[in-house]
C-alpha cells in the first residue's frame, strides 16, 4: 500500500520505535502547557529529579483561571492564583517560554499556538487539554493528553501511543448563508454521535473544508474531540501557508522555502484508504443548536426539541428525559421559541478574530434584548483583542450592550468567576453543553458566533440563514 493518508504521513514521520504489539514511541515536536494540567507533571519531574528533554519545544500560558475583567487587580480567588503562580514558578525554574497573564500575547492555549506560529504543519502537538485537536487544522497531528503523559513528554520528548484508525469526513458543496464551520462540526457530531470518532483520527476534506479559512478549520478540528476523536486534521494548502507566514515562531529565510516544499506534501494521496468515511453535503447544513447535555443532542435551528418517546432504545430515552429535565425544556418546542438569559461568545472553539467580526456584524446598530441579563464577548487572546479593537469591533459590541472582556477560557468551563447561575440558559459559542459545565445548574446551548449574537439581540434563538 503506497498511497498514504495525511494521518499515515504524520504518524510515520514521528515513529521513534515500534513494538511488535502495536505500541509505538512517537516523537513530539511541540508541547503546549497551561496552568491546570501541568503542576502535577512538573512536580513529578522534580520528585524523580528529571529535567525537561527539550524546553524549547514547550510554550506555556495561563488561560483557564484568569479573570476577564479588572486584570490589573490580579486573581482574587487564592486557589486559582496559586495555580497560576505555580505555572509561573515552574516555567521560570526550567526556562520554559511563558506568556504571563498580563502579556499582550496571553490567551487561550489553542488560540495562541497558531497565532504565534508555534503550531506548524507536519508537527506533532500535544497539550494536557482535550481541545488540542484544534491544531490539526494545520495538517499537524495534535491531540490532548493526560497529566501523566504531560510529564512523560516533558521527560522523554515522546509519547507512548498506538496508531488510531483513520476516518474521512468529506464535506462537499458550498455552505449556505449564515452557516459556519461550527455548524459543520455540530452537524457531524449529530450524525456520528459523541463516540462516533472514538478510536479514530479524523481528516476533514472536501470543497467546503477547502473553502474554510484557518479560523474555520480550527473551529472544526477543535470539535473533533466532541465526536470522540482525539485528533482532527485538514490537509495543508495555500490557505495554511499564507496563515503561517511571518508569524513569530514560523520558519524564516531558507528554512521557510524548505518548510513550504515539505508542507505541500501534507495531504492524503489519491486512493489512500480510510477505515471509515462519512459524507455531508454542505448545502444541506443549517445553523445548528444543541438542546441537551451532550453535543450530539443537536438539531437545526428550524427544528424542534425532540420527544424522548421517539428514542431508539431505553438507555437513550432515559438520557433524553434526563437532559430535557436538566435543560428545563419540553419535547416538541420549536428551537426559535427558546428564550435565553445569557450569551457567551469566545473559547478555543470560537474566540478568534473572524468570530469577533461575525458577532460584531450581527450586533451592529442593534441592542441586546431586555431579557438577556449578560452578553459577553471574550477574545481568545490579547492579540485578537487588540486586532478587534483596531477594527472598532469592541465599540460596535459595547454600543449594542455586549460586555467586552479580557482573554481567557472564561465561561466555556467557568473555572474563573464567569459562570451561569443555576437554571440560567445560555447561548454559547463554546464546545461542551455538559451538565454544570458553565456553572452548576446552568443550561448551555452550543451555537456559532453568528447564532449567539443574533440570539442576544432577539432574546431567543433565530435562524440567521433567514435574516
Amino acid at each position, binding site marked *: 500500500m503506497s498511497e498514504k493518508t495525511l494521518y499515515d504521513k504524520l504518524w510515520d514521520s514521528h515513529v521513534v*520505535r515500534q513494538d511488535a504489539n502495536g505500541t509505538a*514511541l512517537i516523537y513530539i515536536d511541540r508541547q503546549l502547557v497551561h496552568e491546570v494540567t501541568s503542576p502535577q507533571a512538573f512536580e513529578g519531574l522534580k520528585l524523580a529529579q528529571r529535567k525537561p528533554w527539550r524546553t524549547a519545544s514547550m510554550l506555556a500560558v495561563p488561560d483557564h483561571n484568569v479573570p476577564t475583567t479588572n486584570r490589573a487587580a490580579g486573581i482574587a480567588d487564592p486557589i486559582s492564583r496559586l495555580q497560576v503562580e505555580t505555572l509561573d514558578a515552574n516555567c521560570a525554574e526550567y526556562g520554559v517560554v511563558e506568556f504571563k497573564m498580563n502579556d499582550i500575547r496571553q490567551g487561550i492555549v489553542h488560540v495562541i499556538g497558531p497565532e504565534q506560529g508555534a503550531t506548524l504543519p507536519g508537527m506533532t502537538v500535544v497539550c494536557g487539554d482535550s481541545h488540542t485537536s484544534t491544531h490539526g487544522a494545520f495538517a499537524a497531528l495534535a491531540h490532548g*493528553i493526560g497529566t501523566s503523559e504531560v510529564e512523560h513528554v516533558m*521527560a522523554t520528548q515522546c509519547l507512548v501511543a498506538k496508531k488510531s484508525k483513520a476516518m474521512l469526513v468529506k464535506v462537499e458543496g458550498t455552505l449556505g448563508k449564515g452557516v459556519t464551520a461550527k455548524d459543520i462540526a455540530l452537524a457531524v457530531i449529530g450524525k456520528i454521535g*459523541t463516540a462516533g470518532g*472514538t478510536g479514530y483520527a479524523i481528516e476533514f476534506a472536501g470543497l467546503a473544508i477547502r473553502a474554510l479559512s484557518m479560523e474555520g478549520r480550527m473551529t472544526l478540528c477543535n470539535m473533533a474531540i466532541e465526536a470522540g476523536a*482525539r485528533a482532527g486534521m485538514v490537509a495543508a494548502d495555500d490557505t495554511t501557508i499564507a496563515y503561517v507566514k511571518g508569524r513569530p515562531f514560523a520558519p524564516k529565510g531558507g528554512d521557510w522555502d524548505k518548510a513550504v516544499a515539505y508542507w505541500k506534501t501534507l495531504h492524503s494521496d489519491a486512493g489512500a484508504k480510510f477505515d471509515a468515511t462519512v459524507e455531508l453535503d454542505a448545502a444541506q447544513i443549517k445553523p445548528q443548536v444543541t438542546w441537551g447535555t451532550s453535543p450530539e443532542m443537536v438539531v437545526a435551528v428550524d427544528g424542534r426539541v425532540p420527544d424522548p418517546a421517539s428514542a431508539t432504545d431505553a438507555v437513550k430515552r432515559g438520557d433524553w428525559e434526563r437532559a430535557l429535565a436538566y435543560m428545563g425544556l419540553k419535547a416538541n418546542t420549536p428551537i426559535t421559541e427558546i428564550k435565553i438569559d445569557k450569551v457567551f461568545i469566545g473559547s478555543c472553539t470560537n474566540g478568534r478574530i473572524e468570530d469577533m467580526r461575525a458577532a460584531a456584524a450581527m450586533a451592529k446598530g442593534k441592542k441586546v434584548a431586555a431579557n438577556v441579563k449578560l452578553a459577553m464577548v471574550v477574545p481568545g487572546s490579547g492579540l485578537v483583542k487588540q486586532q478587534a479593537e483596531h477594527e472598532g469591533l469592541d465599540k460596535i459590541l459595547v454600543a449594542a450592550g455586549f460586555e467586552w472582556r479580557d482573554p481567557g477560557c472564561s465561561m466555556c468551563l467557568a473555572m474563573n468567576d464567569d459562570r451561569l447561575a443555576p437554571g440560567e440558559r445560555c447561548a454559547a459559542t463554546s464546545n461542551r453543553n455538559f*451538565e*454544570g459545565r458553565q456553572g*452548576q445548574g446552568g443550561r448551555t446551548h452550543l451555537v456559532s458566533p453568528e447564532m449567539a449574537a443574533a440570539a442576544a439581540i432577539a432574546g431567543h434563538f433565530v435562524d440567521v440563514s433567514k435574516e
Partner: protein
Amino acid sequence: MRKFSLLDGLVVPLDRANVDTDAIIPKQFLKSIKRSGFGPNAFDEWRYLDHGEPGMDNSKRSLNKDFVLNQPRYQGAQILLARENFGCGSSREHAPWALEDYGFRVIIAPSYADIFFNNCFKNGLLPIKLAADKVDALFKSVEANNGYKLKVDLEKQAITAPDGTEYKFEVDAFRKHCLLNGLDDIGLTLEHVDEIKAFETKHRAAQPWLFA
C-alpha cells in the same frame, strides 16, 4: 504506580451513557496543584445537594440520597459499572485520580473515551470493556442482588460472577504488564534514550525549522 492484579470487589451501577469528566470531577476542584484528595468530590454535583467548592468539609455537606453512590448497599464499592462512552470530554486526569481516590480499582463499561481510557492505566485503575449485552446483564444482576461482588483477575483477563459465569476481557499487553508490575512509563521509555536521540538527530536534519 499502584499494582493491580486481583480484586474481589463490590459493584456499584451508574446507569447512564456518556458520563463526562466534568461530571466525574467538576472544574472548581481542578484548581488543586496536587494529585490526591479528589475522592470526596468525585461526582460532586450528583452526590451532594449543595454546591461544592475546594476546601469545604465534605462530611458536613448534605448528600443526595437518590444518587447511587450514596445508597447504603453500595458503600465501599470498588468496581464501577457504567454505560457507553464513559469518561468523555475533558482530558483532565483529575477524573481517574478522583475515582481512584474514592476507592475504585476497576471500571466496567461497553466503551470509553480514548483519553480517559489511557489516563486510567497511568493510575492503577483498570477500565474493562465488555460487550453491551454483557454489561446489561451485569446491571440487572447488581440491581437484583444486595452485596453483589465480582472477582477481577487481570493476569487471566477474566471477571467471575457469584454464579460462576466468567467474562473474558481484552487488555493491551503493554498496559497489562505495567499494571501488574506497577511500572511507570517514563522509566521504561528512558531505556530507549539512544533511539530517541538518534531519531531527534535525523528529524533535526530533515526539518531544521522545528529546532530553530
